[in-house]
């Protein structure tokens, strides 16, 4: 029986093969990103704190921050795991929400196992608050640490909207209800209130670091200008315990617990949207990096 056959269209075949390739690539990327098996012989848990720290985590597909809810859940898991004898926080963050940092700090304090903070590129502000709640801090001499301060800056558009004859219709019940609104000029007493608030939060930060690092409040106050320090300077100031990398962490834990350290990363199983988010943020970053690099290299071309 002669079967009816469609005429071969090479263009369609090529499109089909390209689609197959794309499907394979996406599927393989999905599997690559979702696999997070733990080392069964591990005795030390590594928990990553990367990016902006907040209470609820990143919102969009292009963000990759850390949620205090997730970190607390992982700390709980590591605490309950009888095979895990210590916890290492792998920190690479410029800080974020004060509340989130404190929540993580409080959870760390409730854990009886040794805790080490391993600061990578940056462990500043809220990230440093978290690091200070551990028993031992290790950072590279080139790491950026500190920034013991509080920031509440924002862009004020009041003059901009005046210029375009736009009116900010103020309807509030409560004198300071719209304090901090970018559409109106901040009054002197509002600025005073904001500063008091920032000073109060700053005070909590200073007290926390002083208590955690066994430093006097006065010494910490002198450092708490919001200044960033290198890891090497941080050691001389008493903000960290050791300069080095993971080998120093292993050395400390090995001596402290008399064990051969075997690490395993504790992380939440990525959901499908987490993987999509990670895929798009990584690809977006790579694309931007590539374009930036190309523009940089061809700057001379563009000028002429």
């Amino acid at each position, binding site marked *: *029986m*002669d*079967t*009816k*056959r*469609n005429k*071969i269209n090479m263009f369609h*075949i090529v499109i*089909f*093969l390209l689609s*197959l*390739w794309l*499907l*394979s*690539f996406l*599927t*393989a990327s999905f*599997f*690559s990103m*979702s*696999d997070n*098996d*733990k080392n*069964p012989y591990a005795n030390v848990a590594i928990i990553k704190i990367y990016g902006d720290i907040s209470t609820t985590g990143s919102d969009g597909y292009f963000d990759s921050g850390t949620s205090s809810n997730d970190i607390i859940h992982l700390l709980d898991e590591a605490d309950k795991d009888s095979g895990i004898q210590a916890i290492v926080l792998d920190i690479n963050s410029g800080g974020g929400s004060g509340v989130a940092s404190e929540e993580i700090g409080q959870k760390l304090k409730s854990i009886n196992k040794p805790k080490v903070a391993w600061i990578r590129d940056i462990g500043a502000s809220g990230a440093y608050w978290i690091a200070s709640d551990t028993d031992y801090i290790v950072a590279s001499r080139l790491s950026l640490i500190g920034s013991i301060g509080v920031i509440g800056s924002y862009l004020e558009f009041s003059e901009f909207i005046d210029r375009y004859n736009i009116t900010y219709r103020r309807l509030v019940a409560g004198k300071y209800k719209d304090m901090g609104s970018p559409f109106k000029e901040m009054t002197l007493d509002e600025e005073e209130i904001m500063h008091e608030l920032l000073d109060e939060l700053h005070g909590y930060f200073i007290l926390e670091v002083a208590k955690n690092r066994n430093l006097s409040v006065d010494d910490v106050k002198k450092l708490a200008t919001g200044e960033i320090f290198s890891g090497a300077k941080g050691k001389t100031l008493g903000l960290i315990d050791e300069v080095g990398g993971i080998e120093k962490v292993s050395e400390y834990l090995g001596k402290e617990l008399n064990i051969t350290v075997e690490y395993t990363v504790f992380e939440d199983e990525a959901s499908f949207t987490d993987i999509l988010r990670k895929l798009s943020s990584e690809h977006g970053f790579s694309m931007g990096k590539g374009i930036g690099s190309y523009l940089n290299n061809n700057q001379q071309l563009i000028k002429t």
Partner: protein
Amino acid sequence: MVNLKLPKGRNSLVYANPLKRITAFLLDFLLLYFIVIDSFASYFVKIFPKESASFKMSYSYALMHQATMMHLYYAIIAMMAIIWFYFSFMQYKYSQTVGMMFFGLFVESTVSKELTFWQCAIRNIYLLPLFPIYLIWVISPIYYLFKGERMLEMLSKTKTTEVIKYGY
């Protein structure tokens, strides 16, 4: 002598030569290596640590990391599903895959003039590494030895043919 005005050459549709079928299949797999398998290769390599250089070490690692092995299995299923779709779709749409085009092989239905997608899907289902489908890998060769045709071709009511030209 009467001039019967017969055509000088004729095309005949016959069952495809097994050697041609095997070569066409290997060609398809070579194409699929670059399109599908290569994408998964980096993931498969990542699964096993560099220290597990020998089969014995990899096997021990696999036994200790069963969750990772399940992930690997699912990835293999996904990869083979994409390959199965390639064969099924190409045979349904054009009655031949890219490899088969090189050897003039075609897939024909034995019951109707038109091939259905399900006929193509069933004849290629051995590609899916799922139970009990992978039992076909054992049963099908035995069936071929006794019956001279592929078991899945019998079940899907299809056959693989090639065009033989003679008299030209």
